[in-house]
């Protein structure tokens, strides 16, 4: 089991969801985050105050998958989120100790989506 974390552009979030769905990865959570990854900052002006916006809006996907689906999930994230410009985001794959599906009490491979092929 792995936890795949994908941090992507908010405007690509729908494309990522579509790609994950096509890859048959069903269990997903997402949250809005702000981050900085080397992209050029936007300069904004509010009346007399000019600022460089160091943080950009991003969307963070968290997807727990069985080992066989790590590659599919990563590919889907890349395919959905890539524009080719700086700021497309990052993907992190982490080992996962335990997973429990609260409704049924199933654990580990029985609890992540999808179950092994």
């Amino acid at each position, binding site marked *: 089991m792995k936890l795949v974390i994908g941090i992507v552009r908010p405007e690509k979030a*729908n494309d990522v969801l579509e790609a994950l769905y096509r890859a048959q990865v069903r269990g997903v959570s997402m949250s809005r985050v702000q981050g900085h990854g*080397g992209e050029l900052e936007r*300069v*904004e002006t509010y009346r007399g105050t000019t*600022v*460089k916006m160091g943080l950009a809006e991003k969307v963070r996907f968290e997807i727990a998958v069985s080992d066989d689906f790590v590659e599919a999930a990563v590919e889907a994230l890349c395919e959905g989120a890539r524009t080719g410009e700086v700021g497309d985001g990052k993907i992190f794959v982490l080992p996962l100790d335990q997973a429990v599906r609260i409704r049924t009490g199933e654990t580990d491979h029985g609890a992540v989506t999808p179950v092994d092929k």
Partner: protein
Amino acid sequence: MSAVSLLAAVPQVDSGDTAWMLAATALVLMMTPALGLFYAGLVRSKNTLNTFMMCIAAIAVAMVTWALVGYSLAFDGTGDLIGGLGYVGLHGVDFLPRNDESTIPHLLFMAFQATFCIITVALISGAVVERMRFGAFLVFAALWSVLVYAVLAHWAFGGGWLAERGTLDFAGGVPVEMASGFSALAAALVVGSRKDYGRQALLPHNAMYVLLGAGLLWFGWFGFNGGSGFNTGTNSVLAFTNTLITPACALVTWFVLDLVRGRKATAIGAATAIIVGCVLITPAGGYISPGWAMVLGFLGALPCYVAIQWRPRTRVDETLDVLAAHGIAGFTGILFIGLVAQVGWNGIADGLFYGNADQLLDQVLAAIAAPAYAFTVTFILLKLIGAVMPLRASEHDEAVGMDVTYHGEEAYVTGEGAILVFPEDGGKAPVPVADPG
């Protein structure tokens, strides 16, 4: 000529009429920021400011063009198709009434009409929000306010061929509602759809703005319709009261249709119904009885509702449904006058139901000519502007959003991670936060 007869020949300003028209002008001006709220709530959060700014821009641009040349072309003289240039730069527009029928200062008449031109330009922006370049919109707004609005205002209000025939249009079914609606369709066709239209759900980001905007628009509409009699007489009272009645009836119809279709009465639907009701009564306000105004609200909402349900199923991204809410509602209102106008209520003309088929013919002519002119000229105008400059944002800018791209601001800025830029290091390259050295 004796002093007495000279005095009698000078048209008199009526203080009561003038007081009301001063207030009505302010009410109509408020409708443009109200429209900004209404529209801004209907777009995605990244385009909030740009959508509102298109309405603000309409005030800036259309007021200037109106004072320079638009007012003159609309209201100087009684040429069939277009007015003269006698009032260019507001030359000769002063404190006396503009003609024998008028009881308010000419300058105030001009100001009231200016607010109509402004909101009409702002209305069209609803067709192109979330993708049109701000600069291109400014150019379009300036040219449209003269080439389309001033011409149609002359036809309907300024003594042009429709007014001369006896076409009845109390507060702008021709130059405001049908002109903006059918121009919006042309603009949506020329500018093209948003890049994700029809592929992803593009949803309103703040329903409260939509409701608040609709409420303020309705409030302002009492000046719009109630002021279009230019006095405090019977037609004005009738139009004012009908502006209360018709939108309420349109709301009832909308609730019923929403409940029948989806078993839920929607809030954004209700906001839309208020606009549709106000537009329906705009041309007819001072000409039809309150009873018929109720019928107009109940029945007139039907074609608009159908159009709003049908449009998103097409490939035409007429984003905020200006055609359905203004074009079709204005068209319906203009025709309705031809059926149910009553001399007993308006003192001018009867409609078909009261034995005057000619009135319906006059209304049909307006309902054909105004949309045809507005659509054609807007289509050609945008094609010409498009040949000189790009009309729409790049795909990248559209994805980032119009607010950051064209205004360098965000509607919902948090300030986290924002670094102050002082003038002395204004020329330095941006330093990433992660690498402050």
